[in-house]
């Protein structure tokens, strides 16, 4: 039998044969594994989880800003109440208290709250009876210190008022908000815990998806493994898929989350409440929000990489 020489020389000089069969010029044809996608709704699961993290992170940041803003506003504020049923005497003692307070070191501003303002504040609770004079209303004096009101400052003010205005009650305004601060702090920890749990859930979802994807491609992986593919080459194929799918989920999730945050922000802004106005976002907060989808993609890649590496270690 006349058998032509096998093609064991170096690559041929002519392109004639290559031109007939040159599909590999398309890099997609060089894929080692089929362009599989994560089974089922994994990108959408990632999107939902990322959206939840964005909302939780935004909530936590808003609460932090709120607490910081409220604390800054009130930390130097002290309220003095002059409790005296006789209106004339109350007015006189109020004026005395203002005089004493103004003379104290460390006091930046003193304001006797006008009675009309007090009546307006109480009217929602007491009705028209607040203005009748039947209910004695203490005189209120807002004092702003030049620094945060420490317990020593409160004691010093109380002592200064003791002789001139007996029975005056001195309170740091921030004391009234301590339970609110504690609640805000608890909510921040809750948001942090939620973020951690959702990060774990994301990792678990990616772990399952990567395991399934690997199991589905195991035969092909074994073949290319035996042909000399390194773990890095095989992992890279899976990680490309993970990157694509996680990036899709992250972008969609971040979009949904930011939309929800903006919507909630508008709702709270409409309240026009002094308490909620301090929760607004600056550049730093938006950068943190922007980092959420990136962190999600990184978690997905890291999880997939570890999962594939462990699966490959089972092969020789």
């Amino acid at each position: 039998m006349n058998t032509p020489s096998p093609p064991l020389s170096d690559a041929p000089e002519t392109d004639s044969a290559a031109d007939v069969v040159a599909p590999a010029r398309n890099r997609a044809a060089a894929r080692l594994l089929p362009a599989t996608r994560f089974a089922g709704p994994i990108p959408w699961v990632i999107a939902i989880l990322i959206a939840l993290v964005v909302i939780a992170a935004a909530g936590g940041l808003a609460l932090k800003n709120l607490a910081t803003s409220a604390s800054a506003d009130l930390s130097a504020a002290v309220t003095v109440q002059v409790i005296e049923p006789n209106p004339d005497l109350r007015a006189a003692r109020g004026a005395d208290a203002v005089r004493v307070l103004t003379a104290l070191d460390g006091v930046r501003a003193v304001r006797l709250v006008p009675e009309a303002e007090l009546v307006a504040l109480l009217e929602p609770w007491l009705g028209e009876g607040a203005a009748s004079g039947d209910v004695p209303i203490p005189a209120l004096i807002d004092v702003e210190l030049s620094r945060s009101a420490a317990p020593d400052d409160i004691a010093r003010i109380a002592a200064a008022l003791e002789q001139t205005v007996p029975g005056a009650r001195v309170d740091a305004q921030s004391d009234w908000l301590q339970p609110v601060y504690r609640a805000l702090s608890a909510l921040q920890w809750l948001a942090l815990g939620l973020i951690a749990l959702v990060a774990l859930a994301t990792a678990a979802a990616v772990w399952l998806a990567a395991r399934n994807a690997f199991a589905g491609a195991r035969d092909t992986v074994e073949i290319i493994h035996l042909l000399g593919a390194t773990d890095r080459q095989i992992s890279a194929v899976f990680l490309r898929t993970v990157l694509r799918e996680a990036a899709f989920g992250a972008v969609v999730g971040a979009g949904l989350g930011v939309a929800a945050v903006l919507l909630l922000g508008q709702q709270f802004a409409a309240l026009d409440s002094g308490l909620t106005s301090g929760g607004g976002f600056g550049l730093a907060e938006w950068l943190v929000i922007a980092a959420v989808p990136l962190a999600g993609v990184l978690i997905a890649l890291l999880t997939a990489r570890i999962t594939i590496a462990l699966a490959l270690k089972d092969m020789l």
Partner: protein
Amino acid sequence: MNDRLAGHVKFDNVGLRYGTDPEVLSNLSFTLYPGSFYFLTGASGAGKTSLLKLLYLAQRPSRGAIRMFGQDLITMPRERLPDLRRRLGVVFQNFRLVPHLTAFDNVALPLRLAGADEKRVVKAVAEMLDWVGLTHRAHAIPATLSGGEQQRVAIARAVIARPQMLIADEPTGNVDPEMALKLLRLFEALNNRVGTTVVVATHDVHLLKKVPDSLIMRLNKGQLSDPTGALRYPPRPSVAGDSGA
């Protein structure tokens, strides 16, 4: 001792068992020398495929020692195995083509895994496909190829990177006699011109006569016999394959 004298592959008292089953290979001690052409024969179930799995690094032995290309396979970390695998060409018993890749891309795999330049890949694969008569099927995926065509793709993939050792499990089982002879000539050419060590597992006794300088290893119930004396009296290093045939 240089590689040629030491041999490509040295088995020393190797045994293999799957799980807790009895050993399928027992007390295998032999050396495969560079540039030699070996036929591995034996009845079905004799352990040919298991022995080939040890040779193409799909399995570690349960006991004994194996050295390949001068390196100890038993203690070698798995990260270094791909380098050794790239020096091998393997024709698997059931072809094991990658199902989603075309014939062209299957043949190109070893070159691409080794990072070969794509222009060189295209030329080399095109020529190899032309030689095995599958140019017109270059774009076909394995599921649309006949058994013989798949086998030719598998063989083309095994030899495309001109391996130092070619391991073939029943490589001519699904092709007509003319193609079988042609493929055997390819193996011989690799053996003679490139110096590739060839190990072919086959049932076909007629095939043994087609390669006069070949050496025969016979497996029987996991034990190796040496009908040509190749294992006891290996070929002289200077002229591989000239003894024992």
